[in-house]
């Protein structure tokens, strides 16, 4: 069953200011439409309830990757293809590049955007676990101005997030503090390309004097939102990555995540695989 196309509006603003003014004038009436790789799938399945969209794809203000001494900032419309080819992201944020390379296939990567991946708010999204592990902050803008918040506080429940009806996600910023860290990203799905994940782990840690420091663990597809597992991180900090640590970290992780049975997998499988991935990551630290 297809949607009735004439029912849908897609208006193209001439500038970012115009887009924000429209969002402000008629809050809740308009929603942003970027690369379309999620929304068009819903449209075709007649499952796109909202009717009026602002085409933000051509807004140059929301594009580009900016590098300073301390941070890398991505425009919300940065595509997966652009992420993969950026040298600083490749060397310092490899999990984000890997997530981008494992999202869809090339035709999807040319259209899908990091900002869209965030506000589509799927718990199975591929780039959010990496962004969480990299301590990303995000900028929301409106006609009233701009505000930054920690990405880890953005998603509040299944498809719920701290964004107002007059706001746009504008930029994503990551601190350049990953040197010397081990990065581990693994998405488990039915197929290498095009698949939606069953479980996805993005993990990072540094090892000094044989002890784990700066452990960051984030997971997708194991809770109503992508989550940063702070308790598991606490269980790792200051410990040696030995068998005892692995066992206690896995026990903590089991309490911290809440996987479910759904069309792609089962709660049992997801829990086991999440523990296996954490174990694999911690074993990687030892080598």
């Amino acid at each position, binding site marked *: 069953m297809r949607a009735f196309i*004439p029912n849908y509006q897609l208006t193209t603003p001439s500038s970012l200011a115009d887009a924000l003014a429209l969002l402000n004038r008629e809050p809740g009436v308009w929603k942003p439409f970027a690369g*379309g*790789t999620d929304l068009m799938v819903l449209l075709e399945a007649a499952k796109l309830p909202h009717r009026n969209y602002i085409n933000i794809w*051509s807004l140059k203000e929301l594009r580009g990757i900016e590098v300073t001494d301390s941070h890398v900032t991505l425009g919300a419309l940065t595509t997966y293809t652009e992420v993969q080819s950026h040298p600083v992201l490749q060397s310092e944020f490899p999990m984000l590049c890997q997530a981008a390379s494992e999202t869809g296939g090339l*035709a999807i990567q040319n259209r899908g955007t990091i900002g869209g991946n965030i506000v589509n708010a799927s718990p199975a999204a591929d780039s959010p676990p990496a962004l969480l592990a990299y301590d990303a902050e995000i900028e929301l803008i409106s006609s009233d101005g701009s505000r930054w918040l920690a990405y880890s506080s953005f998603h509040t429940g299944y498809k719920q997030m701290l964004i107002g009806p007059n706001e746009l996600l504008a930029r994503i910023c990551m601190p350049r503090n990953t040197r010397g860290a081990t990065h581990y990203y693994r998405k488990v799905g039915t197929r*290498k390309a095009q698949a939606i994940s069953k479980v996805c782990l993005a993990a990072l840690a540094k090892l000094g004097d044989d002890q784990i420091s700066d452990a960051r663990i984030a997971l997708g597809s194991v809770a109503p939102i992508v989550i940063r597992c702070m308790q598991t991180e606490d269980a790792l900090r200051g410990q040696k990555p030995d068998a005892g640590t692995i066992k206690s970290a896995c026990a903590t992780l089991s309490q911290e995540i809440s996987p479910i049975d759904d069309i792609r997998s089962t709660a049992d499988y997801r829990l086991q695989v999440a523990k296996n991935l954490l174990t694999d990551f911690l074993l990687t630290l030892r080598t």
Partner: protein
Amino acid sequence: MIVSFTINGESRTVDVFPMARLLDVLREQLHLTGTKEGCGEGECGACTVVLDGQIVNSCLVPVAQVNGSEIKTIEGVARQDQLHAVQQAFIDHGGAQCGICTPGMVLAAVDLLNRNPRPSETEIRNGLAGNLCRCTGYMKIFESVVRAYQK
């Protein structure tokens, strides 16, 4: 709304609903039926076209987003009577079976070879990962791509 773009080197203007899929505009208004519909949800790559130099799934692109763009479809790959090396290789080495995935496969392969004239087997697999062949003729397709760049 009125949308104008260049398609296979020719300027065209169409009167469309803004959320109409580029795929439908190509097939039904411009009668460029070489672009196929497989899944209609961005999984299969049968509707692949080149939009401003990048391959996209035309089932996922609303036509309002191609105003002012340059589009290439399978009809624009050959030069008059001269097939592209990829097309010739698909014919010579059995890369085409039922033909539904073929236009998308050819465009993805042409795009790959434009970016990377001598791809490794892994790079070919990655380049074509978004294109499904339900005749499961993948080996012949990979072979065709290899033969195309060897020429």
